[in-house]
């Protein structure tokens, strides 16, 4: 058994590879913010573990603090080989202290004995408009995922949880929204923090409840767990990250988020466990004084501004955020009727869910179809509003084309507070035109050129194009057509007849059938021999024929006497049959031509011997 397990482990080890090159990337959660409104800086290290990053980034005008590290593991199957990718994400909270443009310089990351530098990043900071949020966010310095206790000021906005006064000390929640003024459709990250007194054993029964009217909530990230000191008391903190997007303009009241949990008073540490996180999510509470409590955060009020009407493009489909646009086309050369795949990638951050597909301009000479779309969140974004959305258009040239249509995306950029329209460049291709199935109707005038072809979105019907093929067609499938069904019925009958014929032939030529026929013939001979009118000469002929047919019933021709000797019948029967043969030979080969005589008794005796011979053969 151990050998088998060892072999299995060896095979798995051979199958699994970590074939991803080391990669270090830095990314800001927002390129634009306001004084006092923090942004998150994530450094993703892919393909290596144990990287070392600086605890503090010294940038004039920005206050930066390392807030923790998280790990992601991805498994992929490539041709039967499993490969794993490990990504470590080191997060900093960047707090702008003054307005202006800032460049976050390259950050040195020590990975596997080498030092890799990230690309510099740019952050634009506008003047403060609202109340700075950061002081309300207790951020411990230099702590790991299960870090040490860090003294930080108490959460200003953290109200006591519902319940008795003692519950206040047990648990409370905090709702952190870094931006209080936003636009309809703008996605704003939100953190829900739930603090639990470390003296109590806690079990969370379900993810937090956080919803309401007028805004939508993205799925929660995996909870982050850590310890923190608030007002001299150590708390275990569980942090859920998500994002909200307002659906309507006006003052928006965000209801408190709630988290159901079970707690057990101090002094009842279960089964030798003394850590708080071991009890989270699903571990069974030990028997005792278990109490259900609901921890609530404070509510929040957001000022949601409507999207301006000025500057709104006709093709604006509701995308709000900061995006970039790229396009590629394959193949570069296409025969007549062959589709070209035009892939348009929209990357950035924002409400990808509400984003419609980019429109195609200068697409007159192309047939286009609604694109397929796929969203992929950025690996460093636990919530899913950073990433890229890919649209794949299949386009077929109506006439010879040297470049693809131009993709255009209009969106509202909340940092600029205006609409932005991005266009991808036309890509050089050589596509042969395919003849249009519908042709210009005879009674219609020639097609008029489009007044502003570059401004026309796809697809557009030319008014002078109508179908001219009016061949009748049926709404019933051809498989239900009577002629089709009759033809198949005839073929089925023919096949069944051929099957029966084949089976009949197979039965008639089988050895079993031949043996049965031979047996039937030999029995007929016995019946004839029993007839008293049968003369001795004929009797002996038939007797010899009977023996011969019974011994050669498989159709093989051979000497009867030899067959008799080789047969498995008893010696007595063999002797009796030999005697019959001898008498017949005596008659055949006698020179005196004497007459054979056969009385009834002898005839019966020979018949009995032959029957016995037959019986033995059958047995």
């Amino acid at each position: 058994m151990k050998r088998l397990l060892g072999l299995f482990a060896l095979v798995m080890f051979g199958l699994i590879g970590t074939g991803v090159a080391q990669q270090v990337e830095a990314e800001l959660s927002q390129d634009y913010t306001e004084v006092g409104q923090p942004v998150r800086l994530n450094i993703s290290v892919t393909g290596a573990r144990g990287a070392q990053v600086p605890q503090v980034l010294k940038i004039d005008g920005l206050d930066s603090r390392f807030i923790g590290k998280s790990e992601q593991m991805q498994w992929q199957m490539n041709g039967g080989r499993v490969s794993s990718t490990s990504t470590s994400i080191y997060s900093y909270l960047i707090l702008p202290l003054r307005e202006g443009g800032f460049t976050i310089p390259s950050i040195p990351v020590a990975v596997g004995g080498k030092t890799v530098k990230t690309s510099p990043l740019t952050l634009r900071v506008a003047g403060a408009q609202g109340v700075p949020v950061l002081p309300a966010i207790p951020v411990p310095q230099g702590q790991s995922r299960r870090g040490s206790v860090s003294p930080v000021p108490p959460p200003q906005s953290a109200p006591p949880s519902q319940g008795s006064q003692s519950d206040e000390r047990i648990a409370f929640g905090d709702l952190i929204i870094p931006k209080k003024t936003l636009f309809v459709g703008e996605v704003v990250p939100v953190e829900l923090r739930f603090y639990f007194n470390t003296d109590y054993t806690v079990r969370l029964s379900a993810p937090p409840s956080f919803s309401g009217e007028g805004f939508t909530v993205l799925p929660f990230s995996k909870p982050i767990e850590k310890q923190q000191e608030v007002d001299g008391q150590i708390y275990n903190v569980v942090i859920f990250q998500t994002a909200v997007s307002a659906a309507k303009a006006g003052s928006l009241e965000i209801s408190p988020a709630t988290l159901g949990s079970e707690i057990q008073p101090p002094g009842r540490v279960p089964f030798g466990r003394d850590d708080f996180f071991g009890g989270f999510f699903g571990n069974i509470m030990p028997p005792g004084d278990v109490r259900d409590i609901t921890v609530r955060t404070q509510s929040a009020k957001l000022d949601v501004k409507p999207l301006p009407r000025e500057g709104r493009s006709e093709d604006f489909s509701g995308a709000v955020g900061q995006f970039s646009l790229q396009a590629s086309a394959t193949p570069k050369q296409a025969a007549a009727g062959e589709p070209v795949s035009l892939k348009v990638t929209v990357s950035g951050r924002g409400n990808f869910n509400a984003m419609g597909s980019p429109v195609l301009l200068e697409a007159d000479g192309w047939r286009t179809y609604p694109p397929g779309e796929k969203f992929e969140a950025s690996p460093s974004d636990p919530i899913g509003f950073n990433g890229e959305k890919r649209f794949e258009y299949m386009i077929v040239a109506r006439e010879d084309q040297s470049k693809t249509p131009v993709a255009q995306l209009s969106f509202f950029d909340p940092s600029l507070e205006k609409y932005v329209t991005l266009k991808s460049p036309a890509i050089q291709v050589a596509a042969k035109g395919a003849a249009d199935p519908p042709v210009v109707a005879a009674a219609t005038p020639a097609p008029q050129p489009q007044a502003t072809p570059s401004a026309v979105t796809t697809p557009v019907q030319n008014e002078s194009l109508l179908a001219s093929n009016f061949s009748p067609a049926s709404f019933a499938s051809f498989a239900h057509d009577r002629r089709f069904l009759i033809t198949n019925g005839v073929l089925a009958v023919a096949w069944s007849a051929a099957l029966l014929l084949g089976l009949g032939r197979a039965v008639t030529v089988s050895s079993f059938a031949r043996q049965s026929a031979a047996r039937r013939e030999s029995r007929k001979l016995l019946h004839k021999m029993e007839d008293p009118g049968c003369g001795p000469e004929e009797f002996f002929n038939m007797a010899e024929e009977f023996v011969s047919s019974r011994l050669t019933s498989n159709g093989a021709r051979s000497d009867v006497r030899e067959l008799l000797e080789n047969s498995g019948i008893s010696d007595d029967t063999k002797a009796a049959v030999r005697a019959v043969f001898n008498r017949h030979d005596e008659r055949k080969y006698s020179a005196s031509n004497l007459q054979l005589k056969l009385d009834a008794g002898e005839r019966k005796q020979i018949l009995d011997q032959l029957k016995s011979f037959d019986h033995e053969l059958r047995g």
Partner: protein
Amino acid sequence: MNCAGKLFFVCLFFVTVLCVHADTIQDGNAAFAKGDYPAAIRAFESALATQGSSAGLYYNLGISEHKNGQHAQAAVNLRRAIMLDPRMVDARMALSEIERSEGVPSARSTWRDFVAERAPLKVLLITGCVLAWLGAFLLLFAVFAMRCRLLPLLGAAGVVAGGIGIFLIGYVADPRVSERDAAVVLEKEGVTLLSLPADQSEVVLRLPSAASLRILRRSGEWTFCSAPGGERGWAPSKSLEPVLPSA
């Protein structure tokens, strides 16, 4: 009247009917070119009523209705055109334009669409059938004449399986089969799918005008439908138009 005389009158009747149809279509084309879309619609409807179903006529009717602002009805007729001729690219384009303008979410393309847009379904059905029967007869030959030798037996079985596979692909991909229960929302304001066939029942989903859904069953004035996203609910029958025209 002798036989020749009867034959003459029958021929005359058919020639007259064909001329009338050709005139109706020409009238429709001319009205469309002039921008008189209601007249074009009447002409194409008349041609459909007299001549019978045709992908080209449904397409022309749909385009005329689209130009006339009857987007949902246009979507129905364009779907009919696609049902009759799944490879009618222009009908697909026009339908996609209508759906986009009405705010219908673009449906994901399935393998059925992929096959129907590219392969002649009738040829697939015939080829599949011919191969299946050829394989079936070869199978008999291999069993009875070649004494069940393995290679011919496997070859014949493979031809049968291939033929059946091609036939099934052609059959299932045919919109006449797969879209048989499809319907289109006719109401300009769209339609609300309800959890029960009653006005005050809970709202399941709201579908825009020209959206497509699948009819599961009818009960009086209500129809139980399935939306493209899989949601099921009841909608008033009068707000839906089946893609398959009633006989």
